[in-house]
């Protein structure tokens, strides 16, 4: 009996494997089934649930959600001056963080890709990746200590007549800029590595100054990398609410409004409506970016 069972198993396994061997599509389907289920359940379902929830209402006293269709939440988000002001502020911060990171990242990435030797390049890559090993919260709280009125920055700036910006929007931009910098350096570094040195030499042979070479040869080749990098810093800033809580003083961003609508107000539909703003902004941004071809180099 044992022999027969094992024969059966062998032949069963054999049949399965020949079936899979002959049918490539089935093979692919089985391979992708798990990740696709995961993606659909976690990502698409959550987004759809978010969209649908935004149209429901909540009983303000007992906190029960009523599944009655209503456009009130969307209307409030679109018309209230509060949401408009906070959206503009959040987008402004995200833009400034992105610009600051790009300006900081370009020289570092250029040095790493074109000037540093293989050994120091490796060290630099490690140095840039190192902060990612530390917890996000620890870094934000470290900035809270640095920016404090008796913190490091004050101590450094006081002798030359400056002073720390304290907690507020400037502090948020500084902290976010620091947090996302590695995500901006790496795509630009990869992009610069692909730019061939012969192009730089040719440009210089034809009489271009260094700055002209960068502006007219390097930067145009780098556009996809820069756009890819900006997606990271822009989207990460757009959805963040922890940094602004820690170093933002009294200010609030879109994430905080979502948070208070869920946490304090217990108004999930309203929170969903607010959360749609960054989703829509990011879709718009990605659609614009798609045309530059940057998504392929992500």
């Amino acid at each position, binding site marked *: 009996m044992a022999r027969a069972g094992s024969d059966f198993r062998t032949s069963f396994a054999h049949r399965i494997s020949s079936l899979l061997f002959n049918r490539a599509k089935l093979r692919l389907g089985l391979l992708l089934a798990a990740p696709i289920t995961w993606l659909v359940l976690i990502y698409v379902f959550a987004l759809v649930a978010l969209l649908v929830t935004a149209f429901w209402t909540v009983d303000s006293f007992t*906190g029960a959600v009523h599944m009655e269709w209503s456009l009130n939440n969307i209307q409030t988000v679109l018309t209230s001056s509060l949401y408009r002001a906070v959206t503009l502020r959040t987008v402004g911060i995200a833009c400034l963080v992105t610009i600051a990171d790009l300006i900081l990242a370009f020289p570092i990435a250029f040095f790493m890709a074109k000037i540093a030797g293989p050994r120091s390049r490796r060290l630099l890559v490690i140095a840039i990746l190192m902060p990612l090993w530390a917890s996000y919260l620890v870094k934000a709280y470290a900035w809270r200590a640095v920016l404090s009125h008796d913190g490091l920055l004050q101590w450094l700036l006081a002798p030359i007549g400056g002073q720390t910006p304290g*907690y507020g929007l400037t502090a948020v931009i500084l902290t976010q800029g620091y947090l996302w910098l590695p995500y901006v350096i790496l795509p630009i570094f990869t992009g610069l590595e692909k730019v061939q040195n012969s192009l730089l030499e040719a440009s210089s042979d034809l009489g271009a100054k260094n700055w002209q070479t960068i502006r007219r040869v390097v930067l145009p080749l780098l556009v996809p990398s820069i756009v890819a990098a900006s997606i990271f810093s822009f989207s990460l800033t757009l959805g963040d609410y922890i940094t602004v809580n820690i170093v933002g003083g009294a200010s609030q961003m879109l994430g905080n409004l979502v948070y208070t609508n869920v946490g304090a107000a217990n108004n999930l539909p309203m929170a969903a409506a607010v959360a749609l703003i960054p989703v829509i902004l990011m879709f718009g941004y990605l659609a614009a970016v798609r045309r530059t071809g940057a998504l392929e180099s992500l």
Partner: protein
Amino acid sequence: MKLAAMKLSALFVGAAMALSACSAATPSASTASSITKLGKGEGSLSLLGWPGYAEDGSNDPKVDWVTPFEQASGCQVTFKSYGTSDEALNLFKTGNYDAIAASGDATLRLIASGAVQPLNTKLIPSYKGVYSFLKNRAWNTVDGKTYGVPHGYGANLLMYKKDVVKPAPTSWSVVFDGSSAYKGHVTAYDSPIYIADAAVYLMAHNPKLGIKNPYALDDNQLKAAVDLLKSQRANVGEYWSDYLKEISAFESGDSVVGTTWQVIVNSMSAKANVGAVLPSEGATGWSDSWMVASNTKHVNCAYKWLDYIDSAKANAAATEYFGEAPVTQAACQYGSAGFCDSYHAGDATYASKIWYWTTPIAKCLDGRTDVQCTDYAAWTTAWQEIKG
């Protein structure tokens, strides 16, 4: 990338919460009646409360008042803590908890939604020893029925750095009308319920508004409080809801004056040089109550717990650990020296100056019937606008 994943899972949890909230019970207060006699313990009990309200020694082996209860009653306790009153409501609605320690800004909502049952206080012997000024109050009693027994209470005080804020303040005006003197270094509690602090101030300084209860504000009165808070906003350095953040801000001098809790004052170092005062206008505060779920299968264990937590020794341990006043005079002999004095336990004059957190509702809590009051949803919207 971890962050993105966190946000995604938060979305998912949010969606799940939305779905589960749909099946929540419809409001049906005051039809239920309390039990008339107690039986044997059911062997287990599931509790929900603020952090530090039911310690079993797992956080700190020296801090344990749950194990003696388990041994005496035979009820095995599991405890879950929450961070905000709103989180508490959502958790309690899952029906997984037998009893909850809730603040006054949650209790009325629990009662109205029918989630908790009226109590028969005759079956809770230690309730007799509870200070009378904590009994039969708006946040634990509805239509003459008691729904909660007190756990502990405290006031939101005014804290200031002695070397900066001179003379020592005796009025909230230092954070409202006079806040510009400390521009950028004023702090305030980050919650819609803080609007009541402004209302307490207006009660004393703008009697024409006719505010009788800081949790019963009509449209005009709310507008006045919001205007006051908006002018305060210009001078606020940061808002706090995490008490560790408040401690760090006062230690570093980024905040020099603002609202606080007694437990924060006790945690400050001597170097920070802070003082705290209950201002002349009075203050807001909290008085937390243990309530029993209406659908509990462990009602006997729940009653035993309510009796235990109001008993002298356990109440002293629990309230001193959290940093608030105990609810019975007998507890004072078990706390460390000066415990009852530092929290002004039993001081009825001190307690009468405290306006305990209560959920603002449309039916005015001060008894007015000619106007509609603003509810908590309106307060939340107003709070977001104040922060801008």
